[in-house]
């Protein structure tokens, strides 16, 4: 029993078929409870008023936007090194999800920024690097869809993902240098004694869990679809030959 067993598409589909309903069910549960708790049963911040509640969408989406890229990076490396097709397809499946997460983070940030900072958008380092991350997602998705041959596309996009990660990281620090920030520092971290106050913290953790599960469910689903689509194409090709 090893992780590499799931490189077999049949095995992957069989396992995810069992896991998928549980993951999606848990995702829905966590999101419903977390968001409703967060939106309706937490006090309003004494300075930010009710706008503080956007944190339950903004923070998890931003987290997942970055983690989705990291997951794509790892999957790409697995594809380059061990050439497991499922891994390449999982990277492909994660890209649009990550892009949407980036858009959610940017949009909710803008909605929060309007009343709080008095502007929809500032060229703050964090905001700017998210916008750049979004551009990287777009380029990655566009390259996938532009190349016809599946293996070539997988190879090229994984190298783009590796090179892109380096440049995304460079940009992250370059924009820090370029402009000073308006965005607050991290409100959550694992090694800090105190995070945001507990009333906000617990529903936030729930909605983060919900977003993670949602991401996993979507990636499983999209990878399955991709495997099945590829199998259909292979069958059709065989039919035409025979």
């Amino acid at each position: 029993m090893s992780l590499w067993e799931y490189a077999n598409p049949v095995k992957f589909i069989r396992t995810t078929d069992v896991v998928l309903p549980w993951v999606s069910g848990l995702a829905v549960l966590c999101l419903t409870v977390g968001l409703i708790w967060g939106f309706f049963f937490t006090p309003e911040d004494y300075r930010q008023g009710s706008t503080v509640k956007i944190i339950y969408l903004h923070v998890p989406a931003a987290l997942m936007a970055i983690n989705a890229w990291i997951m794509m990076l790892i999957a790409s490396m697995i594809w380059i090194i061990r050439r497991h097709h499922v891994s390449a397809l999982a990277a492909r499946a994660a890209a649009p999800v990550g892009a949407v997460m980036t858009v959610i983070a940017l949009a909710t940030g803008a909605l929060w920024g309007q009343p709080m900072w008095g502007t929809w958008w500032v060229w703050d380092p964090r905001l700017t690097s998210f916008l750049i991350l979004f551009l990287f997602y777009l380029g990655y998705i566009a390259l996938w869809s532009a190349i016809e041959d599946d293996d070539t596309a997988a190879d090229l996009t994984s190298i783009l993902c590796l090179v892109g990660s380096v440049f995304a990281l460079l940009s992250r620090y370059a924009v820090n240098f370029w402009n000073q920030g308006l965005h607050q520092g991290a409100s959550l971290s694992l090694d800090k004694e105190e995070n945001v106050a507990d009333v906000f913290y617990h529903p936030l953790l729930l909605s983060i869990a919900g977003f993670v599960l949602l991401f996993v469910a979507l990636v499983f689903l999209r990878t399955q679809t991709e495997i099945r689509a590829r199998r259909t194409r292979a069958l059709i090709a065989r039919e035409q030959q025979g």
Partner: protein
Amino acid sequence: MRALLARDLRLGVRAGGGFGLGLAFFLIVTVLVPFGVGPETALLARIAPGVLWIGALLACLLSLDRILALDWEDGSLDLLATAPLPIEGVVSIKALAHWITTGLPLVLAAPLLGVLLNLAPDGYLWVLVSLAVGTPALSVIGTFGAALTIGLKRGGLLLSLLVLPLYVPTLIFGAEVARRGADGLDVATPLMLLAGISFGAMALLPFASAAVLRINLR
């Protein structure tokens, strides 16, 4: 390697190579900016370093698809790939040829165009220096993008989408050097970071470009 460089330079400079097209584009962008933002000299002086950098970057981008596409179409790239020269070497030479035919003229033209934009007197030297240090990175990164999109029919637009985000750090530090130089501030930190990006890209990216090219030539 030298023969390949000479060949690429000759092809680039002679008719049909599009030599000078990048320069003309740079000139036009610089001329169009005052039409867009108005002719006040104070405003132009303030944005001049940034405009020069963006103009040079776009002119560079415009000529990227020529780096490899022509050789790909007539099949000489396949011959180069089977030659004893490693593909990493071929890619580096291609990037160097692109820099000499496109980047270097842009660097030299930038101070002249600075006159049009009323660049501050201190700025000329630093615009020249920052472009001279930064444009090699643009060429090397561009070669990577060109190698990625080589076999595609509508590669041009995709090339811009892929390459422009990769240009962000270079642009930030390059324009920062030019801007600080024009304001008479200390330029050492951004200049060193720009040089770091430039040399890092020159050292590492040819391997990525070569890997991509091998996949595309498979």
